[in-house]
């Protein structure tokens, strides 16, 4: 249980600055997700919080106490690594008890904590095995269990699911969400490059790019009101359609953004209706993705539920839902301009 504050935190490796002044507050018991493309500094930021890397300048504050120079082991954190970082020569039980054992916890205390964590994660039957005898998902659960035994006030996850296959990723994601419910007083910070993970797990998301915070907000805030073109493009799947040129000018903005699920098919041409031919289709069973060439730089992606009979070359008329149009100015930030005829 800790409130974490970052005040103008910077990190440089030699002349290269990778974290360029981050101000952020992570609330007590919150599940905060750092998300961003590769190289945006999200893992570095997590490592600064953990203390595995030193902070070049700025303050890191846990519950009002500046911890810049506090050893990782004294910060009350536990970390789950992408590669699990289990000790390969120790059994699962010893892996989980190792830290406590050397910290001088009594044998009963150790045993109690290990068994409690194992029960929580349903890995009791694996305690006598070596890590190499476990599957990826089991290893990840052991790594999480090891972190739980530390009884941390802050839980740090560094891309914990990226070494798992797709099905296991979804299952483990669910378990982490459940863990957050069970340990609601523990602050969790989670790093991922996968915006779906971010959207499904987070109380709040911090979108990072190039060592800077682009936007912090709840998943729905980020989805509904992205602070700029980058966040709009990064959050949401499939990616938002961006239109420039005459399509944007019609909405008096430099870039028009519209999500694929916010485009309706209409019967015929009309004002604010785009017409074009189908150039590609993807049938996902529950949804249909249709790519329509309306004369913009890239085809517009339309998402329609259920079955759709639109062979290649079919002419379609698309009407973007006016209330869901995102308008961005030259500076990539949203502009609040009503359309001329509605003004």
């Amino acid at each position: 249980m800790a409130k974490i504050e970052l005040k103008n935190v910077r990190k440089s490796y030699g002349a290269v600055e990778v974290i360029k002044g981050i101000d952020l507050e992570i609330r007590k018991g919150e599940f905060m997700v750092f998300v961003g493309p590769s190289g945006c500094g999200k893992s570095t930021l997590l490592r600064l919080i953990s203390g595995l890397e030193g902070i070049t300048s700025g303050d890191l504050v846990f519950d009002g106490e500046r911890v810049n120079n506090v050893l990782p082991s004294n910060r009350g954190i536990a970390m789950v690594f992408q590669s699990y970082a289990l000790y390969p020569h120790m059994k699962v039980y010893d892996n989980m008890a190792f830290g406590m054992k050397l910290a001088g916890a009594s044998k009963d205390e150790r045993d109690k904590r290990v068994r409690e964590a194992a029960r929580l994660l349903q890995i009791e039957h694996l305690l006598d095995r070596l890590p190499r005898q476990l599957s990826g998902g089991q290893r990840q659960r052991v790594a999480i269990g090891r972190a739980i035994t530390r009884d941390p006030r802050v839980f740090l996850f560094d891309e914990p699911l990226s070494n798992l296959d797709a099905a296991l990723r979804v299952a483990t994601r669910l378990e982490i969400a459940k863990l957050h419910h069970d340990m609601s007083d523990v602050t969790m910070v989670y790093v991922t490059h996968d915006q779906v993970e971010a959207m499904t797990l987070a109380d709040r998301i911090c979108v990072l790019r190039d060592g800077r915070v682009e936007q912090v907000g709840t998943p729905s805030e980020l989805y509904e009101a992205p602070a700029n073109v980058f966040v709009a493009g990064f959050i949401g799947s499939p990616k938002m359609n961006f239109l420039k040129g005459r399509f944007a000018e019609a909405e008096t903005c430099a870039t028009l953004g519209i999500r694929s699920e916010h485009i309706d098919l209409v019967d015929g041409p009309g004002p604010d209706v785009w017409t074009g031919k189908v150039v590609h289709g993807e049938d996902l069973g529950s949804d249909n993705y249709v790519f329509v060439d309306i004369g913009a730089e890239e085809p517009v992606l339309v998402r329609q539920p259920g079955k759709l009979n639109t062979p290649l070359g079919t002419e379609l008329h698309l009407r973007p839902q006016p209330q869901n149009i995102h308008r961005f100015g030259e500076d990539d930030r949203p502009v609040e301009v009503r359309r001329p005829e509605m003004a």
Partner: protein
Amino acid sequence: MSHADMVPEAANAPKSPPPEVNAGSGEAELQRQRIRAAYLFLLPMLVMLALVAAWPLFRSIAFSFTDASANTIFNGESEWVGFDNYVERSVRSNGEVRWRGVLVDGDWWNAVWNTVRFSLVSVGLELVLGMLVALVLNAEFKGRGLVRAAILIPWAIPTVVSARMWGWMLNDQFGVINYMMMGVGLIDRPIAWTASSDTAMIAVLIVDVWKTTPFMALLILAGLQMVPRDMYEAAKIDGIHPVKVFFKVTLPLIRPAILVAVIFRALDALRIFDLIYLLTPQSDSTVTMSVLSYRELQQFGDYGEGSTMSTLLFLIITGFVLLYLKIGRVDLAGDKG
């Protein structure tokens, strides 16, 4: 850790059926072709090994059962003497029983003892020093590449050169080592390092440790670099003291590398010849099995007895390696993840 040895999440998932053996003649034919190709690829290697390893070894062992000498070895006049080179019992006319042969030869057992002593001490010292050097080289600091290269220099110098070099440095009259030790008052008169029977073994050990520690360090360094960095980070977050991390995490993880490094070095040490032959040629306190066997063969021309010693050396080394593999449970095949 490969994916192959992971236990699947659902343990009762249906196993893939075993490959059908008689799934048609086509498959069997393919299998035969593969085996033929495999032998074809192996053939040059097998021929090579037979010529340069198996045949000389066999000849050597065969000679140890003959009375071959420099005069008879090439004209085939040497005679079969059974185990007489190893141990022979003879009864003299006055009824006295005499034993002769390598196995009852005091010089031989002295050489065995010298060799074993040399191997244990040199490999032990090299392991500890090599580990220290490897740990330093594994740390990140400026100019690490340069230091890594520099540390290999002793290993790169030919033994002949380093033996001569150290021979001079250890010289009793002009040697820089005596000069320095007297300078700081460690000794009050020069020591004849290589000539005196008390110090000859120490001299040999100094040179061998100096020369081969870099090799040991390099092998251990390779092992250290296999330890994932996040293992140390996990330990850091757990707040485990670095010394404990070394003994509880690092050491068990680099154990396979250490076992291989030690066996490499031990095999070399048990066969040591060049350094001793060059540095302390006449000293009984350093003569090893290889040196003795060489003397018997080349200087005395007694091929029978020399071959016997070589064969015994071979058996001793084999026995040692088997014992080591069993005790260390070394996995040379690399089957275990």
